[in-house]
């Protein structure tokens, strides 16, 4: 019996979303087939990795990843330049964690200043993330959008509780949006509908399905992603066709496996390698489910994922 390559045909396509400006602008998504199946479709852009930095010293990051940035993480501008110039970052994600009311509660104005300073120092695209406090993020991201006008940034995250302000600000300043909902295909769809009903271009959104770390729910994120992608490609559902962004470092570097010492848990082996491997394995797993943009922390994990991306091209 002769083997005939079983090719699937698809009816839809993931939108291609460009962030940044000038020569260093980056295109995300655009594929019309399941992840990496170029024998039956096109994958114009391989997954992109963004290096995460913060507006305040990341004192709550586990030692393994803090150590990687210890000379630069006290100053977001220095940190951003280090990622771009020394680590080859294609995209930088600035998380304004210091604006969280339970942290330094930095004002929107201060946050906007940080955004301006970082933008002045880099030419790769910038992702601007709030602190995940819905109310505060609305004000912070509005100020950030204004400060970042003309730089075509990716603003996140718009959630059901605060999307109106953030979407309006992004529209006014010409930015792209990350829409995040809680690990549910229908909620993701609904949020995209609400956002586009405001007049926001459906091809300027990226979907964050809410990532989970390996061992702490990754399979939920994985299956939500596969279902979103299937709806886009098989049913040509435009509300499911934004590229997918996974905010990985944030979830990985909270888990015990990135912190427990080998002496406490000998069965878990060496801490540093275990922690780095936890982030890269989470990233690779989610790439298999359709991740188009990954926000990551540890340079060594990023390096590994880059090598895998190169091998998947």
């Amino acid at each position: 019996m002769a083997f005939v390559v079983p090719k699937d045909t698809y009816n839809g396509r993931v939108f291609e979303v460009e962030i940044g400006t000038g020569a260093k602008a980056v295109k995300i998504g655009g594929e019309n087939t399941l992840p990496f199946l170029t024998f039956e479709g096109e994958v114009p852009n391989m997954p992109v990795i963004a290096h995460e930095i913060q507006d305040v010293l990341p004192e709550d990051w586990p030692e393994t990843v803090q150590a990687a940035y210890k000379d630069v993480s006290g100053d977001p501008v220095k940190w951003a330049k280090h990622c771009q110039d020394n680590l080859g970052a294609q995209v930088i994600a600035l998380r304004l964690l210091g604006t969280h009311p339970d942290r330094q509660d930095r004002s929107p104005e201060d946050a906007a200043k940080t955004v301006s300073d970082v933008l002045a120092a880099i030419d790769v695209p910038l992702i601007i993330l709030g602190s995940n406090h819905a109310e505060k993020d609305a004000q912070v991201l509005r100020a950030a959008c204004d400060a970042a006008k003309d730089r075509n940034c990716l603003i996140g995250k718009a959630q059901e509780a605060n999307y109106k302000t953030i979407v309006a600000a992004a529209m006014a300043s010409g930015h792209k949006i990350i829409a995040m909902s809680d690990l549910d295909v229908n909620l993701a769809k609904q949020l995209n509908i609400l956002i586009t009903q405001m007049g926001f271009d459906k091809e300027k959104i990226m979907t964050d399905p809410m990532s989970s770390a390996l061992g702490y729910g990754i399979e939920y994120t994985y299956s939500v992603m596969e279902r979103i992608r299937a709806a886009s490609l098989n049913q040509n559902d435009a509300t499911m066709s934004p590229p997918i962004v996974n905010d990985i470092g944030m979830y990985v570097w909270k888990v015990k496996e990135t912190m427990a010492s080998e002496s406490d848990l000998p069965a878990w082996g060496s801490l540093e390698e275990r922690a780095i491997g936890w982030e890269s394995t989470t990233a690779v797993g989610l790439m298999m489910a359709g991740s188009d943009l990954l926000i990551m922390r540890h340079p060594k994990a990023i390096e590994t994922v880059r090598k895998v991306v190169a091998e998947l091209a």
Partner: protein
Amino acid sequence: MALSGVEIFKHLPKTNCKKCGFPTCLAFAMKLAAKQASLDVCPDASEEAKSFLGAASEPPIRGITIGVGDKALKVGEETVLFRHEKKFVHPCGFALAIKDTDSDAEIDAKAKSVEESEIERVGQHLRVELVSVLNMSNDPAKFAAAVARVAAAAPSAGIILATENPASVEAAMTHVSGKKPLICGANAENVEAMVNLAKYAGASLAVRGDGIDAVVELTEKVVGMGFKDIVIDTGCRKAKDMVEQYTQIRRAAVKKGFKPLGFPVITCAFNDDPYMEQALASVAIAKYASIIVLSDISKWKTLALMSLRQNIYTDPQVPMQVGQNVYKVGDAKPDSPLMITTNFSLTYFIVLGEVENSKVPSWLAVMDVEGLSVLTAWAAGKFTAAKIAQFIQESGVENSVSHKELVIPGYVAVLSGALEDKLPGWKITVGPREANALPAFLKNKAASA
């Protein structure tokens, strides 16, 4: 591929005798199609009908067992491409490669590390199941000696005889007699000799071809020789080829019923960079490999791989749960805080992790709500004031805790009044909504105590 009632009906006696308990042969055929009846109840079914139905109800990917006893590894029998369609059936197995050119001490140490690889995670026991002995020397005697050493030092592990030299298989066979090894494997030149050896040894046989077409030719030949316990190796070792080829193989088997590819896949994730090996193995876990051979099983590396495997192969319909209990976290004392949460594994692990992060010893009461998260359980009426009160009263927690203050998850703050009514004498304190706020909460509580 499922047969329709009409297709099955063609093979039935068509006498409508009712001996099977159904009014007509067509009605019986419909039941057979829905797998709600067995052909056994038809006394007049022909041999042809029996073998036709038997073949059609076989899983699209053959089940293969390596090893014996309660640690045997079964792989195959998969039916879908996506875990959200239906649970994947058998988690893949991991194998550590050991070269027959390694020193005796190295062989012993590596085999021992496989034997001792078992860890527990979310109530399951996870391990590296197999050893693949590589016949690097191409010397049958040296190979046999290495296999003997491995079998002795890793008695729980299934063995892969990784050689393309039939003489080496023959020499090593005695040391794995009755142990259902996997011979890896047959190629175009040695296939007849290898099939005969596999039959004789009661082993399964991996066929190795360069790409899918070569493998198809080989499996057809092997099946033609009357042997079906086949595992396939297309020789690919790079991420892109794995994704592409293993997707094509799985699709061909389950969607097209293409029998020559209806067998489990074996792959190697070897890479000098251990992070890259871990990454390749992760690709293979997600993309349909059934046996993944590794060059090294450092604990840090396999912890992640075993977790990923566990996660991908979890039944998406049945949430993983932990047992109902009052868990002691750290060196909790009678005056340590008492918190309650639900027994969804994810909830439990996340909450437990944050309590541990806080370094405040505490008691964590975990209530059985059939594996739902806090909000889901509350919405489903399983995490109510009455039920929580009953659990606390019957839990025997007063044997461990000297106070009567219960911290409840922030998302069910609405229950605090009703809970105080149902738990007379107890003070209900509303904790944070998100587990990651627990460290701050617990530290503040300790400071103000």
